[in-house]
């Protein structure tokens, strides 16, 4: 096989449902998560947080806390680097407040003590004098002229003149003439939608163990989706040389984008440097809700024109996203994803990034896209209903294909939207009869997917097994998929490969596990690293046989002469070559470093049946089918898991999850009792269909699958609920009080 070949068939290990290597450790409790690390002499930390949504910090008196027995040190903003600008300054402001507390839960000080209880008591003794300021938490109110200003001068040059200072970024994209497009339409539907912020709801709270000496050399163990990013940010926050801080990623109990940022890690390092002791810092669930990064809340206006035959003539969307007290709400992604599934001649999308007194939003699984789909796909559903058209036929008629100019600019390469729609159409679910009180909804969804900086090594052991080191924390079974790809290339059993998530000292820079990039980018790097090791193996065999390197091929774990002309030699299995590698040129290590840019986009179509109790407004999701393009499923079981997980989180977001702020600007529901993620009994079995339209940018055709699965659910469920209830739901979550109010409103107004 040539070393740059694409492989699309005859897989031996790829495509198998192998057991995940971390499974036994996880179910037996042996796996070490963020809070499981200990060190001799370790201290425990607690963080003091603002009870106010917006307040000047007049004075912090730490004397009583420092006088408490067992307390070893207190840090405030004065213990962090100065002179930061731009994004680094925003991160530091979020990690530890400076002159103002910007949201309920904003860290203002932290203390380290010899026990957790002492640290907690000491935190209560830190006296902070606040000057309470007016606050705003709603996105539309934050844009209104009378809204309090979160921070002057935060806006960049993209923002049109005359906007409120809380509008900090602006996006516009599209093509064609939308007015002409609306004029061509037989029916134009225009509506407004809102979604509340939701949290990723990962089961493991943030936790870390930090050691930093006065010499500014340090070690950090933490629960993260990307430890090189943690290394870089912590070094900036503390004024360290990046290479002097070694970061190791723990096992991770969920992230979904929320662990791509730093919150407590710089604080633990600052406390460690101050006390000269290792410091452990573990967030409570309430701290996770109040002070990590939920997704943005939105307010959206959509206008779509359609002909009687279902052709969409124009689409227009305005997307206002609130991302907390800092710039960064992913409004450009919302805008770009909104009409991506459709081939539109006339389309325009506008986005606003709005600051409010809430925690700094972080990525949440396809950041920005699910909300866009909710708004756009609700309007398409309404158009289909009014024109008496089948929702899948209409989507097929307008679907983006290879060669279509995307709503945000580029021309599509090979994509699989049509294939997902066709698979949904022919799925028994789509034609199954509905019971009284039930409604069916469908929706498409889109996510870009990402490549990113990637570095992998594959070291062969003397017995012919392999140690694969990757730098992307395993958030979805990727150690198994990586081992499958390496096994496929090396021609050895899956079990003969051990995949390790290496620390920052071991590999080159690896971007975080985000953008559905791991199986694509680390997978590509693994394949290429394996191929580079195979090249060395072939060279060693060639030297032994005294023939040309190009005359050796690698098949089924053995070097073989490429043909009769190359000579007559018995195949040399991998273990024979590795046992002698010390004498034949030294250790054999394959590696690969690059920024792959061929991440293929992924589309999905979801079908949902929902039942609404019209007397109480309660919704039960009774049937759910996910159809998504995976390019190539390396491990179908984990691909299905990603499909199901996205749907499950989408069900929560659509029906009951929300950030609820009181009039005082404080978060009202910072525990799982009142932040209502679905429990197991709330979910039906989520059926899955894996569509495989290979991505030309990956040797096996892989497309990322982790994020697209959460793009359609909000819309598909909203369409199902609206069809069941007989009234259009335009605000998420569709909680029982909201559904009942919509029904009553409809009964009143007809």
């Amino acid at each position, binding site marked *: 096989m040539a070393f740059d070949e694409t492989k699309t068939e005859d897989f031996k290990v790829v495509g198998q449902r192998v057991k995940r290597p971390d499974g036994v450790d996880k179910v037996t409790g042996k796996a070490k998560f963020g809070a499981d690390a200990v060190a001799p002499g370790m201290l425990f930390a607690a963080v003091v947080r603002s009870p106010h949504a917006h307040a000047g910090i007049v004075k912090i008196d730490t004397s009583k806390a420092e006088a408490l027995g067992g307390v070893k040190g207190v840090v405030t903003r004065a213990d962090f680097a100065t002179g930061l600008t731009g994004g680094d300054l925003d991160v530091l402001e979020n990690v530890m407040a400076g002159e103002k507390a910007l949201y309920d839960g904003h860290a203002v000080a932290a203390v380290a003590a010899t026990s957790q209880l002492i640290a907690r008591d000491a935190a209560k003794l830190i006296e902070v004098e606040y000057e309470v300021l007016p606050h705003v938490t709603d996105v539309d109110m934050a844009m209104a002229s009378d809204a309090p200003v979160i921070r002057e001068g935060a806006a960049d040059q993209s923002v049109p003149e005359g906007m409120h200072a809380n509008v900090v970024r602006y996006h516009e994209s599209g093509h064609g003439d939308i007015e002409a497009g609306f004029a061509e339409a037989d029916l134009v539907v225009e509506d407004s939608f809102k979604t509340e912020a939701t949290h990723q709801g990962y089961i493991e709270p943030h936790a870390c163990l930090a050691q930093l000496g006065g010499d500014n050399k340090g070690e950090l163990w933490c629960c993260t989706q990307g430890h090189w990013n943690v290394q870089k940010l912590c070094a900036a926050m503390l004024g360290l040389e990046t290479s002097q801080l070694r970061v190791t990623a723990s096992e991770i109990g969920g992230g979904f984008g929320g662990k791509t940022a730093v919150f407590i890690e710089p604080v633990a390092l600052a406390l460690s440097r101050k006390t000269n002791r290792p410091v452990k810092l573990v967030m409570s669930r309430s701290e996770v809700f109040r002070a990590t990064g939920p997704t943005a809340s939105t307010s959206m206006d959509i206008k779509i024109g359609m002909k009687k035959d279902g052709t969409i003539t124009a689409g227009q969307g305005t997307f206002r996203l609130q991302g907390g007290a800092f710039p960064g709400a992913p409004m450009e992604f919302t805008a770009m994803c909104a009409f991506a599934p459709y081939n539109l001649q006339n389309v325009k999308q506008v986005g606003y990034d709005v600051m409010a007194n809430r925690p700094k939003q972080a990525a949440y699984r396809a950041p920005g896209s699910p909300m866009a789909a909710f708004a756009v796909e609700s309007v398409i559903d309404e158009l289909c209903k009014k024109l008496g058209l089948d929702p899948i036929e209409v989507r097929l008629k307008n679907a983006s294909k290879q060669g279509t100019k995307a709503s945000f600019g580029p021309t599509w390469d090979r994509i699989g939207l049509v294939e997902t729609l066709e698979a949904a159409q022919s799925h028994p679910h789509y034609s199954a009869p509905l019971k009284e009180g039930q409604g069916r909804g469908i929706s498409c969804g889109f996510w870009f997917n990402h490549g990113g900086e990637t570095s992998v090594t594959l070291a062969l052991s003397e017995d012919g097994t392999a140690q694969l080191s990757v730098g992307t924390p395993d958030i979805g079974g990727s150690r198994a998929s990586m081992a499958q790809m390496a096994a496929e290339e090396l021609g050895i059993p899956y079990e003969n490969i051990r995949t390790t998530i290496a620390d920052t000292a071991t590999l080159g820079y690896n971007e975080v596990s985000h953008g559905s990039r791991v199986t694509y980018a680390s997978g590509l790097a693994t394949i290429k690293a394996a191929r580079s090791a195979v090249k060395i193996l072939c060279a060693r065999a060639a030297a032994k046989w005294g023939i040309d390197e190009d005359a050796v091929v690698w098949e089924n774990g053995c070097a073989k002469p490429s043909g009769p002309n190359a000579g007559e030699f018995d195949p040399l299995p991998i273990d024979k070559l590795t046992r002698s590698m010390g004498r034949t040129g030294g250790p054999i290590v394959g590696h690969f470093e690059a920024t792959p840019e061929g991440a293929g986009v992924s589309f999905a179509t979801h079908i949902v049946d929902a039942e609404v109790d019209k007397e109480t*407004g309660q919704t039960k999701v009774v049937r759910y089918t996910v159809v998504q393009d995976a390019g190539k499923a390396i491990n179908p079981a984990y691909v299905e898991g990603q499909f199901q997980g996205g749907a499950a989180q989408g069900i929560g977001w659509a029906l009951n999850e929300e950030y609820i702020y009181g009039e005082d600007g404080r978060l009202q529901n910072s525990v799982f009792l009142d932040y*209502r993620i679905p429990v197991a009994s709330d979910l039906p079995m989520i059926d899955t269909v894996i569509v495989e339209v290979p991505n030309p940018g990956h040797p096996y055709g892989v497309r990322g699958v982790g994020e697209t699965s959460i793009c359609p659910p909000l819309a598909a469920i909203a369409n199902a609920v609206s069809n069941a209830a007989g009234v259009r739901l335009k605000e998420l979550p569709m909680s029982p009080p909201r559904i*009942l109010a919509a029904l*009553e409103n409809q009964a009143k107004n007809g």
Partner: protein
Amino acid sequence: MQYHTPSSFDDAVALAKDAQGVTRFLAGGTDVLVQLRADIVTPDVLIDIKKIDGVSDIAREGDGWRIGVAVTGAEMSEHDTLAKEWPGLVEAMDLIGSTQVQGRATLTGNLCNGSPAADSVPAMVAAGVTVSVTGPNGERKVAAEDIPVSPGKTSLEAGELVTAVHVPARGKSGGDAYLRFIPRTEMDIAVVGCGINLRLDGKKIVEARVSLGAVAPTVLLVEDAANAIIGTELDDAALDALAAAASAACNPINDKRGTIEFRTHVAGVLAKRAAKIAYERAEAAS
């Protein structure tokens, strides 16, 4: 913090009477320990009553039942005769929390926590449950509905504690039911709760008690709602009158769990549904 494990209720009363600061009695701890960890209530004195003889017993008391103060939800659910006689009460207790919580949580704790949203309390009130209270001034019997006085507050005096729960005799042709509304299927707290207990003579309802939870500062015993169905065969008109009376009795708040309008409306819906179940059970027991 002091932690005591008295071996009799008299000792518990003596400890509580002399205690300084915030005192809490500890049975299952599913509220006390959560409140402690969440910095809501940090007791100075914790009196664990699980070591007292008989607190874990479910025993016949005439034709009724005496349920010890440390009897857990799981123990009630697994008691076939109790569950057969008072399915509404047992189901209400069983709705609380997870399997793990069911291994700890108690009726008495649920009552004395004083929450208007406590699931077992409307069922107790509907069933006509009374509790024995012991304190420095002796013993008294109190109706379940008279224990909570406002969210988190009870009518128990300093040094007083509940020593037993008394469930009346089921008698003939009776049935009870409890329903709660939560947006999910489990692991949630009642947005509205409704307990109904009734007795039939033939097809006609001759006795009824209707109780609502989470719609007022305390669990309510709604006599108007009971009167709406007494003397009827639970026809549609009676059900509508029941719903109207239940809704009229509501005095809820807007909060993170529900709105005033929602709670008021759903109280009526649940009352109807619970009444139908109780009625069916009473018919089956006739």
